[in-house]
């Protein structure tokens, strides 16, 4: 394991511990407001100060991390499953199935992704579920393309062909020969995907399409803080740093492979 990878694992472990453990230990609610104590500086009472409604930034940061990570990890997982399934199907069956699935991928990639997010969040309200759906809608394509191309080349290898001649059924072949080969690659892709989703949520928050208040989430925290940049820079710096650290950690974890595919 390379040094950057180790650093990546370290960073992500730290973030996960902070997000999962600290809210249990520190009992300040992320929702409690105090309008007489807004925008207070980081200090003893509030480790990272308070926001424009007098809520503890530290508490919002740790609780918000759970939501940010939950959304992005589930997005990555959803796209991984859908993408790999269709990818294997397309790669293995070829012919019309392949053509249809790949044109579907083309269509999804050519489909303006922001459109979907805006329409969904605007009409159904920006719940976690709609956000997840909107963000995964185009993410699965990358997996599908990758898996399809790998499956196509793997399929022609001698041992897979031999298995086929022996009369093994397709699901068995896939499980035995294809999945183990593609697994490391798609894991790397999803590692990057988690980071990208966190950034995407932040971007949606910037356009005013994000989670419903008062739920904390890193992207929307940055967005709310931008207005107070000069008097309370910690409102942007704290969640910004967390987003940066997490995405950077996932980048490192994904390692050199990410360079090769340029994703």
């Amino acid at each position, binding site marked *: 394991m390379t040094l950057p990878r180790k650093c990546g694992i370290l960073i992500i472990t730290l973030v996960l511990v902070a997000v999962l453990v600290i809210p249990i230990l520190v009992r300040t609610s992320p929702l409690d407001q105090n309008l007489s104590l807004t925008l207070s500086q980081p200090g003893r009472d509030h480790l990272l100060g308070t926001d424009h409604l007098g809520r503890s930034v530290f508490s919002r940061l740790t609780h918000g991390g759970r939501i940010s990570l939950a959304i992005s990890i589930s997005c990555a997982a959803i796209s991984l499953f859908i993408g790999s399934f269709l990818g294997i199907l397309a790669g293995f069956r070829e012919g019309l199935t392949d053509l249809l699935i790949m*044109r579907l991928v*083309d269509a999804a990639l*050519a489909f*303006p992704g*922001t459109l*979907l997010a805006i329409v969904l969040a605007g009409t159904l309200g920006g719940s976690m579920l709609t956000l997840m759906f909107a963000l995964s809608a185009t993410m699965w394509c990358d997996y599908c393309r990758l898996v399809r191309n790998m499956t196509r080349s793997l399929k022609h290898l001698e041992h897979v062909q031999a298995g086929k001649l022996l009369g093994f059924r397709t699901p068995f072949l896939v499980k035995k020969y294809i999945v183990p080969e593609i697994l490391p690659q798609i894991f790397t892709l999803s590692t990057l995907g988690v*980071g990208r989703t966190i950034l995407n949520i932040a971007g949606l928050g*910037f356009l005013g399409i994000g989670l419903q208040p008062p739920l904390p989430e890193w992207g929307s925290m940055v967005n709310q803080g931008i207005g107070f940049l000069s008097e309370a820079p910690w409102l942007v710096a704290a969640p910004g740093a967390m987003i940066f650290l997490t995405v950077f950690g996932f980048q490192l974890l994904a390692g050199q492979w990410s360079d090769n595919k*340029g994703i």
Partner: protein
Amino acid sequence: MEKIARCIALRFFQGLFVAFGVSTLTFVLLMAMPGDLAVKVTMARYGEDGLSNERIEMVRTDSGLDRSPLWLYGKWLGHTLSFNLGYSMISGRPVRDVLRFHMGLSFKLAAAAMLISLILALPMGIISGLRPGSRMDLSASAFSSLMVSMPSFVVGAFFILLLAIRFRVFPAAGFQGSAHLVLPATTLGIGLCAISSRVIRTAVVEVKNSFYLLFARIKGLSGIHLALNHGIRNASVPVITFLALQMAHVLDGVVVLENLFNWPGIGFLLLESIQGRDIPMIQAVSLFIGLFYVGANLTADLICAWLDPRVLSQKGDI
């Protein structure tokens, strides 16, 4: 040659089909969403203060929202097939004119950003690729990881604070002149360069380690000749394919930056027409983005085939 022509024709029609499918899908999505379209259109047209129930009914009849979705779709189809694209439900302007205005700005931004990203990415990628693991390679890698991990609007806001407000070198936002282009194009260009420099690096590494280069070297060709005749040409194939995809993404994926810099490109238009449910406009934009995506891909493949005819035999089956 015949094979190339057939391949192009096939790809072209499939692309057309995909773009059309995207546009139709958009229509279905808009119709399937809950809510009263007439209210949304009225709100976008007259603003929140100008909304009244009489106006909602007026809009419903004059924009055909009281008819069946099939009728609306047919109307759009008729307009599109006659290359007219119809009229905006909100401003009443011809969709074509509005699209041309926003498209022009988007292309300007995309072209400038691509130029900046290539100016930075080419030397970065090539130098790191020639000496993988060197200090230069590591710092380039660190730089791109850093840039990729930051939301683009944070980088943009930083540039505005520094270059527009602190030093007043460039305007903070707007779209009138070339000076206004500098900050958004730089922000976007740096983000693109972070990724494309890595792609270039990989392409260079792969070519460098290839057998044909080894063979050419054994033949005794000099360094410069080697690079010019064999290196660049082979390395550009994957790079161009990637750049075409990136270009397509720049058109519709930068709505956040367009908002920050008040650069009314295609993303801006899309965001606005979605909020107002301006159906003819949304469909025209998504058709155009779809066509552009398909076109960019096709062009990239053609260029690659031209540069390296081997690609054709690999991609013969589309």
